[in-house]
């Protein structure tokens, strides 16, 4: 039992050490090039914050237009994270995917706003608490 605990702590310690060595190596690479590389973790935290703000916007707001804008914010956070990973790993596939996500987002906004205008024409409101029936 004590031997298992000891080996578990050793493996955790080794993984923490590997993490630190990786960061140290990246900083060595950065200082060799006389520039500071921003760690990829910072991009993940920033995009998670934007995504969480978008989620809160979809949950709280009752104006359908603001809900739509929060969805666009979530899409943008995912776009930025994809582009960051693609830039840090020298893989162009991430940026190509961002391009296609932008294509889909643009088409979706066109259709969504057309639907919103049509709904407003018939019911004169965009409050989603009023528009909660499929047929009225």
């Amino acid at each position, binding site marked *: 039992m004590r031997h298992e605990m000891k080996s578990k702590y050793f493996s955790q310690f080794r993984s923490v050490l590997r993490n630190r060595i990786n960061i140290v190596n990246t900083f060595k690479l950065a200082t060799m090039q006389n520039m*500071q590389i921003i760690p990829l973790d910072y991009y993940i935290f920033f995009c998670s914050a934007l995504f969480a703000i978008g989620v809160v916007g979809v949950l*709280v707001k009752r104006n359908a*237009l603001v809900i739509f804008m929060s969805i666009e914010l979530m899409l943008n956070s995912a776009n*930025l994270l994809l582009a960051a990973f693609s830039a840090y790993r020298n893989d162009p596939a991430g940026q190509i995917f961002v391009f296609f996500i932008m294509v889909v*987002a643009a*088409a979706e906004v*066109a259709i969504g706003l057309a639907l919103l205008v049509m709904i407003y024409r018939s019911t004169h409101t965009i409050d989603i608490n009023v528009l909660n029936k499929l047929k009225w």
Partner: protein
Amino acid sequence: MIFSKYLFFILSFIAIYAALKVLISKKPMHSVLYLTLAFFAIGGHYILLNAQFLAVVHIIVYAGAIMVLFIYTVMLLNLNIQGEFPKSRLAKIASALAGGLLLMTLIAIFRSYDLKMVADPSLNQIGLVKNLGKVLFEEYYLPFELSSILFLAAMVGAVMLGKKDIY
């Protein structure tokens, strides 16, 4: 450049502040304008990563087309009335809690990752138009053509939905 070390944090602060003001603003028009500011900050992030094609396309598509569509909708339908949707205090507290928990979960997941950073993003060349265009047209040609069909369907659908009488 000394300035570039803080540029990431300046742009992130602007983007998060603008995103928060999108939710907090009373008038929908202010929300739209703050979202445009957030999109410009994210475009700045793309330039930091040397993803030049994506930065320009992002500004053109999001700030130039999508936000303009939103502004048209707000102005044509006269939706710029404040205080129209009152919400209870409990809903605000519960949603802030839910969003905060989601953020904590995401950060806790990514805290112990061993992320390999292979390249310096301000030096790599894959974000330039020429290289990205090569990859797009050599490997991803089929999705490119399919996206044109998607746009055609979206255009036809939007025009049809905008007509006053469908019959």
